[in-house]
């Protein structure tokens, strides 16, 4: 069954459910990052959107 499939990441073996639970936990951890770090991450996302994403009108925050 799809539900029982295991995912191998290096020496870890986890289920899809565990993978998604971990992703959710990571999101909650990132939500507690300091505001300054989040704005730096945002500036990186803006750079990606401008360069790779072709959104030339995006202003990258300093």
């Amino acid at each position, binding site marked *: 069954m799809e539900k029982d499939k295991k995912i191998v990441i290096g020496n870890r073996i986890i289920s899809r459910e565990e993978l998604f639970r971990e992703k959710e936990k990571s999101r*909650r951890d990132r*939500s507690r990052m300091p505001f300054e770090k989040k704005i730096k991450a945002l500036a990186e996302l803006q750079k990606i959107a401008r360069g790779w994403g072709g959104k030339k009108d995006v202003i990258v925050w*300093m």
Partner: protein
Amino acid sequence: MKNTLALINELKEKKLIADYAIGGAIGVLRWVEPFFTRDLDIFIIPSKETKKGVIDLSSIYDYLKKKGCVWKGQWLIIGGVPVDFIPVDALEKEAVEDAEAAEFEGVGTKVITPEYLAAILLRAGRNKDLRKVEMLLAQASIDGKKLDRILEKYGLAGKFAGFRRKHDGKG
């Protein structure tokens, strides 16, 4: 961003505005993981209403232009950041008054709390707003009683129940 907030703080010091708080996507970003956005929404309580029902923001823009800020499309670029000033309505005024003090690289500011952000975004109701409500509910620490009180007061409780039903089968 630091210079942006310092200049916005000057507006309050010079009494060009009575108060302000960060809202919109950056307000949400304060409480959830980083995500892409273009601009900074600043909710302002104007220092005065010039005529009945007229909010004149000219003095704010004049002050900022003198400080070297320039227009680019719909935004005023303040310290390299595109900023939208949004004069508050009743719900947003309460949100600004309730906003939480925060610091950015030593500069003080205020950020609207997740409960008020959720209510404001729910009311706006566009898909991109509702995605942010989902993020707040999943990642931020929401005071359920506070959120319910706000939703009830501003007639949004039914809309919220519909949103919960549609998005996660609750409500």
